């Protein structure tokens, strides 16, 4: 097992390196000079030269790459060319904002999906399955921003129940209940948009499990089908779900780009869209690097987790 884990880590490292080279290459391709982020137009030529030398920008590209990687690893992510703010400082504010939005939504979606998926799978072809499966295939087709607009119209404009923009009402920044009512609509949208695929996944793996021999044995012993479902099938269905949870790690950063934009939520999504619109290359590449690293790490984690919970995993370290 450790051999397998070690092998997986060894595969992930070169991927991370290549991704970082791609991001660095794209920054170099971009029509701007990295020093622009640190200078102001009224600085003298000499000062600009000094700054260049200080950040290693007068050196060849491969040396700059090493400086850049060193900076990233030590938490120094560079500066925005629009606002001249430190990117790592911005990220440290934005990421928690996205996490408090995405994490509860994902958790609720996961719990509901496991329940609905189990019911649908167990009642395959029956009414309950038709409703759940039908709604899921519709749900996959609904763009999250449109769902957000419909909810904003109904609960924001018509019923006036929930605020539709931002994270806090001005003046009550510290209040939890204020944050909570701002969370309701975007969390609902996210939950509903995460659910359809999860439900389908749990449903199909439940169907797969129900045709296994151990289920037949239990039935032969006269175990009630609810008991079989929750005592035996559930456990085996949850195994592959762990893989999915691991792979969803990057969602904590980029899972809500569109939803955040609709609700003006001050998270990574709006930060990213604003930097795209303003051609703020250092921020764009920082987010690209961060999110793809999370994808690679997420896949790695899910493989390792799966290997730990299900030691049968094929080809241990072959």
């Amino acid at each position: 097992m450790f051999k397998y884990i070690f092998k997986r880590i060894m595969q992930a490292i070169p991927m991370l390196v290549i991704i970082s080279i791609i991001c660095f290459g794209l920054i170099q391709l971009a029509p701007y000079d990295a020093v622009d982020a640190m200078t102001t137009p009224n600085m003298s030529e000499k000062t600009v030269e000094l700054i260049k030398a200080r950040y290693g920008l007068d050196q060849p590209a491969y040396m700059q790459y090493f400086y850049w990687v060193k900076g990233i690893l030590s938490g120094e992510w560079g500066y925005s060319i629009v606002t001249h703010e430190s990117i790592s400082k911005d990220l440290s504010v934005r990421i928690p904002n996205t996490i408090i939005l995405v994490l509860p939504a994902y958790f609720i979606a996961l719990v509901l999906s496991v329940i609905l998926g189990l019911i649908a799978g167990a009642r395959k072809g029956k009414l309950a399955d038709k409703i759940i499966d039908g709604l899921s295939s519709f749900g996959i087709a609904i763009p999250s921003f449109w769902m957000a607009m419909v909810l904003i119209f109904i609960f924001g404009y018509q019923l006036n129940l929930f605020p539709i923009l931002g994270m806090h009402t001005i003046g009550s920044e510290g209040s939890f209940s204020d944050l909570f009512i701002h969370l309701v609509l975007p969390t609902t949208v996210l939950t509903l948009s995460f659910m359809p695929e999860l439900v389908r996944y749990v449903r199909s793996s439940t169907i797969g499990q129900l045709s296994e021999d151990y289920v037949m044995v239990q039935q032969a012993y006269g175990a009630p089908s609810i008991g079989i479902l929750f005592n035996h099938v559930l456990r085996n269905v949850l195994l592959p779900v762990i893989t999915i949870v691991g792979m969803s790690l990057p969602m904590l950063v980029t899972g809500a780009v569109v939803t955040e934009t609709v609700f003006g939520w001050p998270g990574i999504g709006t930060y990213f869209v604003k930097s795209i619109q303003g051609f703020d290359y250092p921020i764009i590449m920082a987010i690209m690097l961060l999110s793809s690293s999370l994808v690679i790490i997420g896949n790695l984690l899910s493989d390792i987790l799966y290997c730990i919970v299900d030691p049968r995993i094929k080809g241990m370290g072959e």
Partner: protein
Amino acid sequence: MNGEKNRRIEKLKTELKRNKSAALALLFLFLIIFVSIFAFLSPYDPNKVDVLNVLQKPNAQHLFGTDELGRDYLTRALYGGRVSLIVGILAMLISTSIGVLVGTVSGYFGGRIDNFLMRTVDIISSIPWMILVTVVSIYLTPGLKAIILVIGLFTWMSTARMVRAETLSVKEREYVLYAKSTGQSIRKVIWKHIIPAVMPTFIVASTVSIANAILMESALSFLGLGIQQPLSSWGSMLQNAQSNLGNAPYMAILPGLLIVFTVYSFNKLGDILRAVVEPKTSGGK
């Protein structure tokens, strides 16, 4: 071969009879393609500004009202559908072609070529699509061409993986081994024997990829990174609708429903085709 074809058509018919929602989805697709081709028959010009009739509610003259510049909304939605469908279909063609090429080459040759291509697939797939597509699009002039290219060029990875897996089993079949042993060129073996054999796989994948491309386009256009004015797609119409949500909520309804039903229908079409080409899934069990 012919008998095979007839059998599949028969199966398609029974599948459509059995699955009513799939038949409806197919009907809807024909309808939406038909009306977007004949959108020019509408008495209104989709881009003509009419300041006297801005933001009119749906009425007898304008069935779905007018937008903030007085343009007939139904006409714009039909033309928008044209754009969304063109993006979906062309992006699908690009991504399927690349996917099939990479998949067959990778599966057929194996070894180093396979390793290289599949690692490339891994790397591209590890960048979240939303990020990848937007980052690439800032290096291009925004517009219809850019969005088709960007979506087409960066969504072929799953097709490539599927086709590769399929090729691995097809290339061991006797007729392929025979073709190889008679000295047919590699290109001919791939083109004449491998690609026809993996066709069912990528046709199913391609209908689903139209649906995904339409969703991606609508999200990008909604964020203002896709289709630019005066051209509009369903996504960019919704972007407009968002700023008028308070006083003209009807503007959000039509394009949204059109996206949902079109995407749903393409996905359903994929389900039907899958049932037709894969005998295993169509059975009752």
